[in-house]
């Protein structure tokens, strides 16, 4: 303890040394952005996911097992199973019985397997009277997150990754389940165990606490009704007066109750009524209070509880101890802390009503916690583990009493598949069902989008909120100032999920849970007085500050400033974990310490005495590789601040803005943006929605998806034939490696009007550019085929191509097939040609009837895999493999090369999308003095209303870069200056505005305007005409209604809808209506009997048993169907026919 004080005082003394050159202006720190790559080097882009998963597999899983370590059985008091330890191993695959081999993620992707590792336990149990210890007993398999500590990829060099067919730029952080890449989206939630004071819809102030522990989740509300305070909880059938609750908690003296709530005049007067009510109810003692509560407890069957009946009082006491405010620990019914907590809730409400403190804001990001894969899996695993143990217990209870030959060995009853399937099922469907919390969540995991590298990264940083999408609320959707630096202000989808789906900023880190014990001890050492030894008076004393740790009251402190200061000093010195945050709230008179998981935080440079702690020398050492980001943290130069602590700090954006009050300095302003927004050059010059649009479109851009893209067999994969790194880069682009895995091409753009095919943002493309490979793309599609074995020993087979009898050549449908009956790589498949000539036995269920003496010869039916598509495809490769479920798995990769055509969608990096409206010959394109003609002509009307000035600057920067043979930077809030770019242009003999003297390619005369001309990075988006074009003259019809089918995929008709019909009615085109709605749809000749008005059949009325009055009508088939359906429910529609008279 002494040593501890020495350290603290030394550190504080060091801090207090005054710097002699105090008043000099602070020089800007060059290249401090280099801290960012250093940060990402240790943290990585998706470190949140990986950290969280690592925490789960290495620490939390052990805690879960520890909490549920013993399984006992009532049948045999000697029987027990005790878990000693649990491990998650390295991923492997069981190739045959008991033979396992290590497996790489890519193999799992290709073979549709799950990348998982065995979970093994060490147990101690009894068999008969023996006590046995078994080590490394498998109980199930855990899907392993890529690049987590248990993944084979961790710590591998790029060359080693290449051997495993993995891309070094792939961020990891997802699972491979049944061959599909699945990401656990980050879930945003309101933080647990915190008091939140809010007003309800009527304006009544109330306060709520959502408690969450390992066992229980509950919500406790404090409401005000007619000036009295009530506790509301869903286990109580009616609202409970607070004073009664406090009395039930053993605070019988009303004086103490008032002292706890507060002795200020206004508080006493506000609280008086509540005490009065308690008297009215005649509740004076703890027993009375407990009985009162016990009578109001909502009766329900408690799940899994045994033991006999409890009295009402006991029930109420139990409820208060474990369910109401569950997170406040109650040891041996010592309600002291919980009572103080309740009193504090009342105090907060009273103070808020009086306007002394402000209401809490639900949307404030300090009140949010992010739930990651690790936490979600922990919930699920604990549930599964409990179920597993419950099952063991049940088996033991059933089996032990039975007399049997062999001794009962519980190990033989440990089934692995329950935990394995539970985890795999949850991750692959995204349905998270946790019984004990009654949690039912869908869409937790999603398939990792591999459209482009950016879409993949974007998905890994996505945060989904628990709010309902349909609700029209602006609060949770709008940008909160507290999200500054933590969440990207640009990257959110448009439409219903706007503002609810968010993305992390570049430097955000999400904390994991931490041990509270050491922090509690430290707090007590730093002068916090334990709550248990204090009286109510001392708690609400205005001279002390309450100290909270993760929402629980620790105690009070007299000198809170010293506590906070010392705490921070110790943290900077590395004695406390860097992610523990501390801040004080003057209004609440509280000091909050947080060490819980799911807080967002980000690093800042520490400023002391107007000086940033990071100096030029540090950066130099960083560049030389003598320093890492951890050193910066360890030496107290940089520290992490979470939202709450950030709110308590004074952060200077630039060195020049450092004042005497500054505590921190921003590392780099552009890090407030996320991955997707970081690609935009000069985003600070754009209108903000444009950046949002680009964030959405960057995810649809084609390009490259990874170095292993040619080894992948994905359902759908888009590639650009000649992707190019952007000419105008940003620091983010360098850091995330977008220039290594680009999605787009540099196009020479002329901003001018041309023809008339460029209205509404349409682009004119140069045909020669397309001939030379501009924006050419490859589309890969997968075809799957499984050969099954059936119960009756029959199996699917693949036959070679059918030969034409006369020519001895394969029939047309089979021309693509190789002799093994599977399409040969390199061949071109047309629509309706067979790719795998599979046939299937006609009888698969019942055993075959064998004729005596004859071998079994099952009959087969052709079920070929047929290629369907508007354009031909080439067979890129064929893979034949197997896995645990399927004995024979065939995957074909089909390839198309597409040249841009009219209607294909393009976009620049500024949310400026457009379709190709015309492809013009090169000689018709305008050209400059240098003979340059554009690849793309863009209509200038795209600029005034969109205000994408960034695009204009990108063009200038691109042009200047091309002329000097270098890349320019358009980093957000920085980047190369327009004036410098203009100078570069002038130096190279170009106009300083970037406008060129241009000749018309058609007339050859100069254009009367100067044309803004230069390279801009263009993205080809995945929406292509070829995938969308559709028309039909005649085609398939629906079986039931005989009307044309619907939708492009079914070659459907184009509907003449109600509104179009209304037009025709209004116009009076009755014959056209008849034609569209009946003749071209479902005309049907029906024989109607004019006598009975019912429909007959082939000239005969079945009702009248005659053919005399039959007439033939043409009606829609749907009409006939309606009549028949009505008849079937005993309603007779009769058609009244009359003779048509001239």
């Amino acid at each position, binding site marked *: 303890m002494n040593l501890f004080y020495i350290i603290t005082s030394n550190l504080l003394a060091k801090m207090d040394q005054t710097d002699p050159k105090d008043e000099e202006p602070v020089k800007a720190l060059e290249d401090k952005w280099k801290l960012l790559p250093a940060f990402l080097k240790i943290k990585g882009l998706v470190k949140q996911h990986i950290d969280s998963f690592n925490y789960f597999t290495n620490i939390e899983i052990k805690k879960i097992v520890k909490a549920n370590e013993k399984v006992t059985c009532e049948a045999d008091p000697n029987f027990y199973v005790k878990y000693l330890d649990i491990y998650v191993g390295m991923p492997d695959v069981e190739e045959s019985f008991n033979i396992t081999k290590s497996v790489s993620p890519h193999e799992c992707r290709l073979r549709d397997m799950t990348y998982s590792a065995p979970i093994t336990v060490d147990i101690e149990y009894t068999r008969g009277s023996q006590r046995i210890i078994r080590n490394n007993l498998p109980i199930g398999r855990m899907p392993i997150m890529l690049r987590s500590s248990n993944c084979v990829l961790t710590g591998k060099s790029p060359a080693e990754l290449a051997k495993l067919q993995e891309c070094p730029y792939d961020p990891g952080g997802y699972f491979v389940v049944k061959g599909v890449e699945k990401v656990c989206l980050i879930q945003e939630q309101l933080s647990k165990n915190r008091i939140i004071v809010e007003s309800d819809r009527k304006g009544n102030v109330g306060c709520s606490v959502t408690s969450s522990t390992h066992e229980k989740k509950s919500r406790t509300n404090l409401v005000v009704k007619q000036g009295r305070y009530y506790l509301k909880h869903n286990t109580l059938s009616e609202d409970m007066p607070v004073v009664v609750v406090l009395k039930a908690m053993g605070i019988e003296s009303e004086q103490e109750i008032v002292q706890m709530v507060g002795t200020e005049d206004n508080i006493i007067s506000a609280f008086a009524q509540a005490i009065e009510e308690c008297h009215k109810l005649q509740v004076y003692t703890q027993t009375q209070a407990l009985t009162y509560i016990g009578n109001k407890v909502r009766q329900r069957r408690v799940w899994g509880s045994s033991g006999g009946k409890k009295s009402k009082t006991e029930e109420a006491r139990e409820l208060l101890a474990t369910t109401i405010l569950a997170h406040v620990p109650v040891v041996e019914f010592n309600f002291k802390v919980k009572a103080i907590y309740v009193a504090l809730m009342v105090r907060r409400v009273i103070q808020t009503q009086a306007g002394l403190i402000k209401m809490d804001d639900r949307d404030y990001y300090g009140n949010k916690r992010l739930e990651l894969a690790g936490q979600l899996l922990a919930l699920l695993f604990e549930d599964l583990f409990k179920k597993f143990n419950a099952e063991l217990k049940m088996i033991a209870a059933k089996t032990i009493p039975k007399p049997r030959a062999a001794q009962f060995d519980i190990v033989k009853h440990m089934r692995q598949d329950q935990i394995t399937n539970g985890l795999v099922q949850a991750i692959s469907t995204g349905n998270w069902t946790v019984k004990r919390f009654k949690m039912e969540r869908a869409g937790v995991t999603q398939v990792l989008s591999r459209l482009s590298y950016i879409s993949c990264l974007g998905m890994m940083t996505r945060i989904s909120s628990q709010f309902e999408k349909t609700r029209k609320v602006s609060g949770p959707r709008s940008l909160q100032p507290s999200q500054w630096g933590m969440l990207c202000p640009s990257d959110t989808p448009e439409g219903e999920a706007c503002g609810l789906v968010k993305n992390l900023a570049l430097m955000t880190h999400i904390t994991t849970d931490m041990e509270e014990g050491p922090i509690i001890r430290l707090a007590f050492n730093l002068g916090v007085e334990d709550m248990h030894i204090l009286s109510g008076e001392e708690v609400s004393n205005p001279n002390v500050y309450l100290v909270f740790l993760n929402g629980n009251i620790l105690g009070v402190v007299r000198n809170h400033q010293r506590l906070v200061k010392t705490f921070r000093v110790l943290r900077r010195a590395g004695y406390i974990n860097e992610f523990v945050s501390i801040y004080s709230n003057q209004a609440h008179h509280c000091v909050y310490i947080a060490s819980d998981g799911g807080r967002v935080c980000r690093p800042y440079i520490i400023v002391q005495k107007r000086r940033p702690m990071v100096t030029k020398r540090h950066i130099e050492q960083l560049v030389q590789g003598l320093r890492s980001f951890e050193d910066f943290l360890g030496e107290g130069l940089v520290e992490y601040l979470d939202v709450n602590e950030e709110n308590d700090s004074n952060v200077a954006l630039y060195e020049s803005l450092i004042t005497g009050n500054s505590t921190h300095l921003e590392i780099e302003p552009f890090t407030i943006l996320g991955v997707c927004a970081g690609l935009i050059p000069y985003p600070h010059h754009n209108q903000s929605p444009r950046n949002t649009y680009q964030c959405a479109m960057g995810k649809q851009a084609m390009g490259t998806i990874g170095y292993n893209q040619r080894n992948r067999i994905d359902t759908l994969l888009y590639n650009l034939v000649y992707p190019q790194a952007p000419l105008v880069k940003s620091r983010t682009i360098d850091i995330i490696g977008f220039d290594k895995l680009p999605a787009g091409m540099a196009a020479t753009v002329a901003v001018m009007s041309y023809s008339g095919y460029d209205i509404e943002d349409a682009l004119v493309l140069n045909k020669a550019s397309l001939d030379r490979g501009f924006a050419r793309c490859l589309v890969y599609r997968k075809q799957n085929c499984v050969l099954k074995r059936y119960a009756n020993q029959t199996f699917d087979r693949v036959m070679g191509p059918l030969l034409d009898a006369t020519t001895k050549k394969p029939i047309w449908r089979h021309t693509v097939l190789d002799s093994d009956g599977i399409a040969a790589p390199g061949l071109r498949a047309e629509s309706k040609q067979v790719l795998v000539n599979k046939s299937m036995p006609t009888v698969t269920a019942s055993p075959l009837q064998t004729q005596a003496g004859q071998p079994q010869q099952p009959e087969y039916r052709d079920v070929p895999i047929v290629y369907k598509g508007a354009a031909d495809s080439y067979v890129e490769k064929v893979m034949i493999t197997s896995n645990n479920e399927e004995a024979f798995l065939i995957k074909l990769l089909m390839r198309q090369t597409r040249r841009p055509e009219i209607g294909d969608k393009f976009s620049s990096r500024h949310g400026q999308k457009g379709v190709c409206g015309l492809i013009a010959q090169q000689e018709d394109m305008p050209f400059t003095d240098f003979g340059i003609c554009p690849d793309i002509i863009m209509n200038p009307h795209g600029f005034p209303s969109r205000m994408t000035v960034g695009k204009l600057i990108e063009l200038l920067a691109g042009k200047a870069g091309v002329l000097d043979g270098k890349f320019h930077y358009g980093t957000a809030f920085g980047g190369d200056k327009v004036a410098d770019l203009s100078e570069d242009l002038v130096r190279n003999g170009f106009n300083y505005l970037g406008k060129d003297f241009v000749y018309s390619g058609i007339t050859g005369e100069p254009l*009367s305007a100067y044309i803004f001309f230069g390279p801009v990075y263009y993205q080809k988006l995945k929406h292509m005409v070829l995938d969308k074009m559709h028309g039909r003259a005649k085609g398939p019809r629906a079986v039931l209604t005989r009307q044309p089918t619907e939708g492009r995929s079914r070659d459907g008709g184009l509907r003449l809808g109600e509104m179009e019909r209304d037009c025709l009615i209004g116009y009076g085109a009755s014959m056209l209506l008849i034609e569209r709605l009946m003749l071209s749809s479902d005309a049907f000749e029906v024989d109607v009997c004019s006598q009975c008005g019912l429909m007959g059949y082939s000239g005969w009325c079945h009702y009248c048993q005659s053919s005399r009055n039959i007439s033939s009508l043409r009606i829609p088939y749907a009409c006939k169907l309606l009549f028949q359906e009505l008849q079937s429910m005993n309603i007779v529609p009769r058609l009244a026919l009359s003779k048509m008279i001239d």
Partner: protein
Amino acid sequence: MEQAMEKIRTRVSLEEHDVKDVHSTDFPGTYQGYDDSWNQKKFEKNFKIDVKRLTDSEMEFDMIGIDTAIANAFRRILLSEVPTVAVEKVFIYNNTSIIQDEVLAHRLGLIPICADPRLFEYRTEDQEEPTEMDTIEFQLKVRCMKNTHAPKDATDPDELFKDHKVLTKHMKWIPIGNQADLYGKNAFRPVHDDILIAKLRPGQEIDCRVHCVKGIGKDHAKFSPVATASYRLLPEIKLVKTVEGDLAELLQTCFSSGVIEVEESNGVKRARVADARRDMCSRNVFRHEELKDCITLTRVRDHFIFSVESTGVLPPDVLVTEAIKVLMSKCRAFVTEMHEQRSK
């Protein structure tokens, strides 16, 4: 007045924000007192071609005294209607390289083939078999091997592997019919022998045959005989006021080098237009308020500075004559068509 009229007639003027007088106006009757009707004699007197620079691949010449439409026609024809020979069909026997068949074929298509298109005929669409009159065949057969003699610590693919780069020099001409006798042994080859087609790794192989046919750039850019062909109008810079001192030096920086000279006489620096032709018309003078009025920028309407960059298939001067021939044959066709129409 006369002068202003003359300027409008013969010059395109470059102002700060726009270009004035862009259109030709020398049609008969546009201006009073001018005889703008076309006559052969006047044209012959004014028309001039002046070749400034001529190398194997590039050419710059001035075409003076001709209407924009005609000059532009030459440019357009050079780009898209002078025929060349390029790869049209690729027969892939084996391609185990990383590059896709279609992309390989596309890359092969863009290789300029050194073959005089005048020796060949267009291949008709319905024609099945290639003949010596319309097709040149090449073979490309490369297999990458490990270099067994490579030093152990080598990391450079050039040392580690043999033939890991498929270049145009690997393309072998296979004469069809009597082509070898007609044109000699190595008559046809790609223009450059170091164009990278694909990269291989040991065990990978490309084995294909390509058929080259005659075609025009309108059909596909690979048939275009020029890297680019374009013209610019001759710039003309006139000093309206004398520019002296520091301003003269400022003026000099506003133009491409060599356009403005600063002479020093009697200790006074004075700007003089030395060679307006070298100016790239960046109009940067207009940035300076004090220089704006000292100068007029114009371009001569009928003085075209042509620049033709050949892909190397044919020398640029031949391309220009070919272009002229194409235009002539078009005119001839048009004239016959008109006669035919009239006789009907």
